[in-house]
């Protein structure tokens, strides 16, 4: 269903956004991840791009649930995904204190290589075409285009 523009031609229908509000719970995060990946695959993303979205999405959800909300049962994570054959846009927002992106150590430095954590953001930013952190780090917008590398 689209709205007619002033010239009488119907405008393109905006893709419908999928939305969830989940608890700070990994299994609910996995359900959301699976739903988004199913939509991405249904839109014929390439295997490499599906891999990129799956990995980045998992990292972002884990960050929201574990590092943002600290598994607080009283805090929610909001997820929104808009999928087309050309791209997927995902927005994830937690209710935590936020963080300073600039303050996150570079995990690829020699002194950090043997640390067991701290790679999630690097992976997200490596695999997505665009990553935007807003609301003090509580909200992240991920954009992945379904293009060849």
């Amino acid at each position, binding site marked *: 269903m689209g709205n007619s523009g002033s010239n009488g031609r119907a405008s393109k229908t905006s893709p419908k956004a999928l939305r969830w509000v989940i608890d700070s719970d990994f299994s609910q995060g996995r359900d959301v991840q699976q739903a988004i990946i199913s939509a991405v695959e249904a839109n014929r993303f390439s295997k490499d791009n599906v891999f990129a979205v799956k990995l980045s999405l998992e990292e972002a959800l884990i960050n929201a649930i574990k590092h943002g909300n600290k598994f607080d049962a009283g805090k929610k994570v909001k997820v929104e995904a808009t999928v087309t054959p050309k791209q997927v846009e995902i927005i994830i927002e937690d209710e935590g204190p936020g963080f300073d992106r600039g303050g996150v150590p570079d995990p690829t430095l020699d002194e950090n290589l*043997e640390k067991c954590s701290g790679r999630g953001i690097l992976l997200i930013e490596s695999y997505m075409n665009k990553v935007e952190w807003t609301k003090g780090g509580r909200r992240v917008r991920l954009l992945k285009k379904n293009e060849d590398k």
Partner: protein
Amino acid sequence: MPDFLGYLNMAETVPSVSVVHDKDVRIVEFTNNKILDEANIAEIGQTLSALVEERANPKLLLDFANVDHLSSAALGMLINCNNKVKQRNGQLRLANIKSQIIEVFVITKLNKLFRILPTRAEAMSSFNQ
């Protein structure tokens, strides 16, 4: 012919890993391609720790043939395993990693930390006696 020890999961779900020993090398094969997501990582980490602590100078080979997905939490588990192997003067090799997963190691520069070989046979040959 390596003996098959197998890893029995009390909950009767698909085992996370299977363990085979070939001479003094413990070969760990991930048996579920979704294995390296958050839910299973702690369990696998405990299994690997037990193998490392089994003997002095442990030799451990991790076979990634069935792995299609890997999170940063899984990388952390592998680093923890590597640290324990080093503490016990052991050797760790990773093998049969698919190209998409290799890319994750390259992006994180963990290909500098781990000894990664293309095949199980090459990994077996690379152990110092």
